[in-house]
């Protein structure tokens, strides 16, 4: 739940004062729409508006307010942070993972669980985590060989990230009481400089660290058994090494980071724009996109901007440092396809605008589960 949209996003109720915003669609009205449903539905986990309502209505009540020395639940950043007496920040984050299928092209739930938490820490500036915990809930009847493979994959991914699993917990539930395997990981670590997701200001450049939509399209093709291109592979990978290179090259000029997981680049940029009170203009032809992802997305009618990435970051950088950061990214194995894809602007605060090369349009925040087009 650490990746949802802020309760304090200025776009929600603000009437933007910049010219030409009068025709903006009413859908961003905060109070619009039905109140919280009586029961939890799948959409409440999909990372969009419904999930924000659930968090605000249930989980974030009585959250300890964030201060200069504490970042808490109310900030809905990638994790919580406590300022230590020596000035460093202790960052803690947790993530629970479910995925169907458990093993998918390019990875599995184990790799996802390690990379997800390592990446959430990295997005706040922690590139050398102290350790991870691992909690597993397994369904009765789950094959031990699959469980072994998943755990081998966790160990391999942890080695890749230079982090150890330091404690864990296992529960088994009856057949049908849960579906397969649920993996929770919690991670913690120190950073001298806390990077938030709200640091953008007009003029900053937006960089993505590689091709977008790879994970989401691979999962979609596997889950719906779409007979699509066999080259679709998840990008799931731990990014702490890449982020260390970015912070080395960019220093204080790296002002905002987010991993565009659920809801994809569209959701991540909405959050960053909303929290910072800036607009974001994306240039479509600059977006790195694998041909097979592009083809699959056209076929099934799903926007690659709206699907999950598990091995990518979106980074806001002061303009003077952008080329330097880009060069550092491209020198790294996981950042070879990195690109500057847009800019923060003062107009249209809270909105994400796509320059398609033909005209401009809004990018909307994905909502609910993405399903392939059938008709």
């Amino acid at each position, binding site marked *: 739940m650490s990746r949802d949209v802020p309760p304090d996003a200025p776009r929600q109720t603000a009437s933007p004062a*910049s*010219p*030409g*915003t*009068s*025709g*903006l*669609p*009413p*859908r*961003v*009205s905060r109070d*619009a*729409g*039905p109140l919280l449903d009586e029961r939890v539905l799948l*959409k409440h986990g999909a990372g969009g508006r*419904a999930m924000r309502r659930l968090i605000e209505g249930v989980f974030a009540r009585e959250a300890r307010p964030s201060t200069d020395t504490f970042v808490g639940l109310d900030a809905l950043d990638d994790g919580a942070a406590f300022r230590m007496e020596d000035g460093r920040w202790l960052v803690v984050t947790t993530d629970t993972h479910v995925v169907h299928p458990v093993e998918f092209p390019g990875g599995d739930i184990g790799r996802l669980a390690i990379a997800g938490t390592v990446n959430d820490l990295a997005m706040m500036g922690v590139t050398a985590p102290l350790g991870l915990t691992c909690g597993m809930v397994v369904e009765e009847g789950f094959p031990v060989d699959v469980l072994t493979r998943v755990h081998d994959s966790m160990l391999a991914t942890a080695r890749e990230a230079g982090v150890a699993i330091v404690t864990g917990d296992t529960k088994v539930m009856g057949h049908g009481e849960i579906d397969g395997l649920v993996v929770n990981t919690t991670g913690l670590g120190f950073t001298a400089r806390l990077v938030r997701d709200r640091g953008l200001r007009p003029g900053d450049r937006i960089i993505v660290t590689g091709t977008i939509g790879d994970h989401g399209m691979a999962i979609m093709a596997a889950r719906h058994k779409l007979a699509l291109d066999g080259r679709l592979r998840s990008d799931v990978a731990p990014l702490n090494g890449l982020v260390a290179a970015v912070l080395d090259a960019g220093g204080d000029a790296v002002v905002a980071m987010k991993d565009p997981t659920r809801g994809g680049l569209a959701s991540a940029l909405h959050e960053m724009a909303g929290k910072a009170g800036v*607009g974001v*203009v994306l*240039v479509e*032809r*600059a*977006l*790195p*996109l694998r*041909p097979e992802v592009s083809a699959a997305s056209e076929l099934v*009618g799903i*926007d690659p901007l709206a699907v999950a990435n598990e091995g990518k970051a979106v980074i806001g950088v002061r303009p003077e440092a952008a080329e330097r950061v880009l060069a550092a990214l491209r020198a790294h194995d996981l950042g070879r*396809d990195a*690109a*500057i*894809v*847009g*800019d923060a*602007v003062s*107009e*249209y605060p809270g909105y994400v*605008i*796509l*320059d*398609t*090369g*033909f*005209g*401009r*349009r*809004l*990018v*909307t925040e994905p*909502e*609910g589960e993405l*399903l392939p*087009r*059938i*008709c």
Partner: protein
Amino acid sequence: MKIPPTPGRNPDTAALRFRDPALAADLARAIRRAADGLPSPLALMHVCGSHEQAIARYGLRDMLPPSIDVIMGPGCPVCITDLPEVDEAVALAERGVRVATYGDMVRVPGATKSLADAQAAGARVHPVYSVTQAVDLARETGDEVVFFATGFETTAVATAAVLLEGVPSNFSVLSAHKYVPPAMELVASLPDSAVAGFLAAGHAAVITGWRLFEPLARRHSLPVVVAGFEPLDILAAVLRLVELVRDRAYEVVNMYPRCVSPEGNENAQRQLWEVFTPADGRWRGIAWVPGGNLALRPQWAAVDARNRYDLAGVGEDAVQDDAGECICGPIMIGRATPHDCRLFGGTCTPDHPMGACMVSSEGACRIWHQYGGRPDLSGVPQ
């Protein structure tokens, strides 16, 4: 702002796919010149969800001069499938028959419920990609399967072809197929119609041929341009249509010649009319459309679900004004846009659709919701 193209992206792809931004900019300039001096606003109507998808997806309206208003007409087959037709499908599903239909149809509310509601209560509803999947379902299960057949002439041809090939005896068809030309006729005949010209849907014209639109163009003094679905297809068609309006040339021009011929696919037409016959019927939210429905011919009674099952009275009490404030109807004839609707984006979202236009991926409301509608983005720095 200056952003270099990203290495690794193949620049040829854009050209191959009729997506060259430089050519598009040339077309946009030509449209501006052609529209100069013409009445404003100049309403050009397309009748196809795929056109709306492309226009919204690529932000094409942003390239057009403010005087040109490209509006969507009745081009969403799911949206205009009538309430009683949905009710018939729901009734069959509730009686234990397996109902197969195109995915978008499953969530469309009938008078009281949708197929999805029936499914949640235990009915067997199968979303399919094609009619052949529905036939396979009948073969594999041996159970009674009804294909709830929706869509325009494009999907009707597929239904016809499957029936002509022969289907198992446990398979039948509940036809809600519609035929577009009569609806264009209806929109053109509205006494206060502001439509100055039509963009006809390229894929439907592949079947019907472009000559089909000639009587309409003559009768209503309205030019018709057949358009494809790539950005350049659409811009080139808009340019031609504006020129025809300017020149008062009330004719049909085919701007999709790589797919569309004058007479169309005559084999497909033969199959279509061998199985279906035009019938009068209501299009949801719009009107009674003479000749707008495609009914199974009497010789196909054996596979006609309306003949096989007793559906008398089903949907008869359906109140047409189903969603109160929902303005799907005016939106579908181009008299309103989703932004004119009080429900749009608030009470009515893809998650909680109040009207069919928000359910279907071909519906104007759904498409506008997906791409942020039609805001004024003139303040965005170039």
